[in-house]
């Protein structure tokens, strides 16, 4: 069951990502990205990380991508024009990407033992559920990074407010 889900939604995620690059209209690209996000959410779910899956759908597909689509709609962006692109990218692009892919998979496969097996669902030691487990980790071991991240986001919000505010005459 998990394998079937992985194959279907992994393929869907890859297809969505390719479609994102190939589409010429920005709104179609944005919608392909939504498909990628949703397939990733299903993959998280099949790995036992249901909270992460729900957060992925609510935050990425439901809020961030809606804003993307909103901005594209508001600006009424037209179809992009195809350019020739740089010659260097044409020549190096595909071999370079393949080389990086091979290198990364080699490292991951050879260091499999040292890296350990990912357990996105969290080790359910005390019979807690997924969300309780995540919040335990967030508020004990990862408290400093968690708080620093929230301050970082707060600073970003303040910056956006400063930029958006009209100058008073």
């Amino acid at each position: 069951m998990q394998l079937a889900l992985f194959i279907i939604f992994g393929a869907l995620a890859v297809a969505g990502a390719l479609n994102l690059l190939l589409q010429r209209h920005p709104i179609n690209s944005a919608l392909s990205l939504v498909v990628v996000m949703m397939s990733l959410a299903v993959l998280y779910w099949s790995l036992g990380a249901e909270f992460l899956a729900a957060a992925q759908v609510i935050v990425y597909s439901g809020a961030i991508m809606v804003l993307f689509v909103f901005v594209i709609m508001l600006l009424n962006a037209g179809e992009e024009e195809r350019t020739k692109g740089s010659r260097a990218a044409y020549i190096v692009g595909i071999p370079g990407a393949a080389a990086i892919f091979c290198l990364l998979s080699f490292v991951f496969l050879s260091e499999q033992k040292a890296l350990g097996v990912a357990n996105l669902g969290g080790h359910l030691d005390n019979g807690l559920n997924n969300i309780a487990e995540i919040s335990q980790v967030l508020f004990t071991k990862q408290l400093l990074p968690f708080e620093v991240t929230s301050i970082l986001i707060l600073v970003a919000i303040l910056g956006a407010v400063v930029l958006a505010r009209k100058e008073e005459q």
Partner: protein
Amino acid sequence: MSHLSPFQTFLLLSIVKVIVVFVITLTAVAYTVLLERKVLGHMQNRWGPSRVGPFGLLQPLADGIKLFLKEDLLPMAAERPLFIIAPIIALTCALVSIAVVPFGAAHHIYANGIGVDMFDISNINIGLLVILGITSIGVYGIALSGWSSNNKFSLLGSLRATSQVISYELALGLSLVGVVLRAQSLSLRTIVDSQSAHGLLSWNFFGGFQFVAFFIYLMAAYAETNRSPFDLPEAESELVAGYHTEYSSMKFAMFFMAEYANMITVSCVATLMFFGGASSPLGHLLPANFGGAILTVIFPVLWFVAKVFAFLLLYIWVRGTLPRFRYDQLMSFGWKFLLPLAMANIIITSLVLALHG
């Protein structure tokens, strides 16, 4: 049925449940429309639909036939694939979220060694998040319909709808946190169970002191479903019909059904979160086996339906009473009033729980 494996039994029973719930929901959607027309009519001193069938009860059927037979117009300048897919997204998202709603007491039937809950399509341990997630996807239907119509009224309507839904989603999500803190779970079944100890007194609205959260939820939910007094996306006096101006026939009907299905979902969630779901308000005043085995199973469903019906009536009552908000009022109400209030509610609820529990 004995030659089926447990998995096949599970699949078969689940499909039966899905079909039954689907048919009931669609019928409820059709009759909510009729209810609204009737009640609004009586509020405005007229009869409402009264010609088709006794008391106009067959009106939804006639409306359905009419919409099926109408010509399906496709504007020339529309973006075809998105124009067609938008109502499908809207209706699908509106109907799917009913799948995690438990609409009766937990009652398992056993067959081939597998127990299936009769009054709940799927009991997921993050049911609440699933509903919020599906609701947040539903906005694509509205956003894309307005953009792909290539019509300025539609675009304005969908821009209003999108910004409104994003803004009020925050207040909506935060208003439910207090309830989640009390129940210590995101599973809708557990949340309902946590309110069923002493009838009315243990409901989150009364015993849980979550009435502030309930009013935040109610207002945010009205904005989320684009209903009066927050129906700016389809304000007929300014935007013709808003995002579905260019739609006709069944595509229009899908938007219409999505709106009413969303109303039903929102009422279900309000019932589950604040009013004890399928639990009886009388608590232990009635004996546990009141009325025999069959009635004990049916009574919770009746309570649930009655509560949802009350919320639907409230929706209609509000629509018949309140004038529409202005756009800037809508935004400042959401961001400057509801959101801080929801946060204050979370802080106070968690403080009380920490000091008492």
